């Protein structure tokens, strides 16, 4: 066994190489787009917190501003920690890299490395902090902010460590007992299992257009234990919840008027329908992630057929939402119902199509597509909150931009 110092150096070198390589894999254009998105999120946070901080400074003094900023930073760090933990649990299920247990590595070393990989997700929280810190500039002494920034970085790192530790603990608890074995070894030993499932009988060899064959394959994969199946449950549940909004009784304690109840139903049904569409977009991206690059690129399929098969799901979902809401939104006046249906259908379609576009144009990098999709939708929500209809403009801009990238599909490559 190598001395600890040497193992630490090996780990450090590996991490440096991985960071360098992963950064190099992001295209320069995508780097600029990500930076612009980060800047816009920061600007949004600045926009929203500056006014509140200013009010706090006037009414309660600079200490109250510091407390509020520290509270927001702690919230961000906790969010980052939770993200890292969730990511770590998923990674322990199927850790990337070599067959780790076959290597002569101490489990503690391996645990540190895998946690490092997952903690990178917590660092995303750092991108959001400058907006909050800049919002406090001029309201509190600068050196306070310097200290807060340092404390925030520490909080993010600690949050990531705690999140990963909790995930490792939970995964180890789930693993079968193995006396004398390190918890990580037990977790990894049970993580890599062959694909589950019973034999598939009754295969139908039928003539059908390529787009239909693709849709059928997507459906099959969504019924089998894949990441696509996990992603499909959420939009279906949220879609049903959005319908349920129309039937929910108003809490008597609130003593709402009839008009207020209608407005509450209207807003909650609309919001849940859009969130359902957003999660459907995530499912469409997950489907792209299920497509093996060599299989899809080796087939005589143009981007039109591939995009069309995914867009069809988006259209079917939007149409189903509209039809179901048309039947459920009876409390609304006919004109109001029509407006609601048009807006809900249009927004749901645009949101889900954005997911389809990212899934196809960033194929086979489904993880990057998921992140960009979340960022774009976050930006659209932020835009909506800042200026009425701004969210639509952001959404449509994202849709057009991603659609313009579709012709480049033929030149996409598998990441090295």
């Amino acid at each position, binding site marked *: 066994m190598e001395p600890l110092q040497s193992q630490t150096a090996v780990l450090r070198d590996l991490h440096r190489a991985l960071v360098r390589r992963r950064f190099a894999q992001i295209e320069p254009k995508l780097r600029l787009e990500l930076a612009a998105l980060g800047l816009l999120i920061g600007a949004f946070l600045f926009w929203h917190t500056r006014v509140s901080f200013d009010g706090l400074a006037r009414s309660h003094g600079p200490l109250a501003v510091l407390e509020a900023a520290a509270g927001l930073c702690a919230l961000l760090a906790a969010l980052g920690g939770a993200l890292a933990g969730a990511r770590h649990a998923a990674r322990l299920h199927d850790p990337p890299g070599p067959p780790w247990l076959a290597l002569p590595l101490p489990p503690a070393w391996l645990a540190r490395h895998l946690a490092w990989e997952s903690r990178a997700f917590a660092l995303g929280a750092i991108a959001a902090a400058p907006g909050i810190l800049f919002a406090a500039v001029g309201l509190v002494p600068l050196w306070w902010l310097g200290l807060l920034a340092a404390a925030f970085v520490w909080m993010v790192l600690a949050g990531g460590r705690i999140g990963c530790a909790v995930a490792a603990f939970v995964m180890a608890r789930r693993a079968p007992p193995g006396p004398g074995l390190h918890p990580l070894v037990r977790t990894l030993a049970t993580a890599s299992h*062959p*694909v*589950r*499932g019973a*034999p*598939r*009988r009754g*295969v*139908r*060899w*039928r*003539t*059908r257009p*390529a787009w*239909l*064959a*693709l849709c*059928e*394959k997507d459906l*099959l*994969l969504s019924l*089998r*234990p*894949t990441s696509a199946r996990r992603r499909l449950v959420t939009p279906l549940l949220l879609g049903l919840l959005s319908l349920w909004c129309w039937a929910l009784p108003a809490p008597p304690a609130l003593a709402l008027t009839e008009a207020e109840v209608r407005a509450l139903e209207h807003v909650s049904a609309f919001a849940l329908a859009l969130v359902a569409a957003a999660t459907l977009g995530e499912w469409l991206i997950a489907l792209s992630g*299920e*497509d*093996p*690059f*060599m*299989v899809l*690129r*080796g*087939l*005589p*399929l*143009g981007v039109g057929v591939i995009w069309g098969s995914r867009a069809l799901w988006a259209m079917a979902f939007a149409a189903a939402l509209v039809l179901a809401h048309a039947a459920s939104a009876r409390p609304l006046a006919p004109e109001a119902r029509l407006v609601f249906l048009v807006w809900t259908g249009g927004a749901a379609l645009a949101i889900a199509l954005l997911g389809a576009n990212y899934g196809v144009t960033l194929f086979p990098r489904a993880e990057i597509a998921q992140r960009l999709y979340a960022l774009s939708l976050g930006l659209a929500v932020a835009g909506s909150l800042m200026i009425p209809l701004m969210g639509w403009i952001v959404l449509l801009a994202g849709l057009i931009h991603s659609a313009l990238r579709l012709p480049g599909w*033929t*030149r996409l*490559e*598998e990441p*090295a």
Partner: protein
Amino acid sequence: MMSVAGLTRRYGRLLALDEVSLEVGSGEVVGLLGANGAGKSTLLRTAAGLQPPDSGTVLLDGIDLWRDAVEAKRRLGYIPEEPTFYDELSAEEYLAFLAAVRGLEPGSARRRAAELFARLGLVGRTDEPVGRFSHGMRKKLSFIAAVLHRPPVLLCDEALEGFDVAASLSAKDELRALAGGGCAVLFSSHVTETIERLCDRAVILHRGRVARALRRSDWGAPQPEPSPLERAFLSIAGAEAP
């Protein structure tokens, strides 16, 4: 036939293919030899349309792969070195999907798949999810997927690696039959013996360039097939030599 002209491909500073030109005629099986990193897989991946070249053209059955990719790929079969599948689908579901996308007649595609399953020893496993398959079984399925539609051009990257003796002999017979029907086969392998037995010509790739081209007469008569050792194995395994 297949024609590659002036194909160049870089990975950053590494020049993986340097102005490679070669032709594989209809009915011809051409072996592709080269050391690790010589550019064999890069050549096959680029010729299969998985990655664009920096320059040069690939014609599959007379169709420019990068101008009319869909039409060109209708005529192509490609066996990658490390095949990937939809692991949750069964072998038969996967082939039925490929057959539909390629527009094959369902009845004949099914019969052909059943025949290839039998010849390569996959009968009884075709309803299992592919994710359960061993490496050799995955390679066999990849072979079947590539030849199911009897393509006019077939690119093989270490196609027989991982095959057992009986399946390897059957697969070579299938390749010869395809070539007999006019298919142009480019067959990359590290096993010179396989190339000697199977190929009409061979091309040696070195540092991304075609270093030498040889004809069958250049390497003389290959070992008889099956060899005595293969015969011994087949007698114990209970399979008949094809």
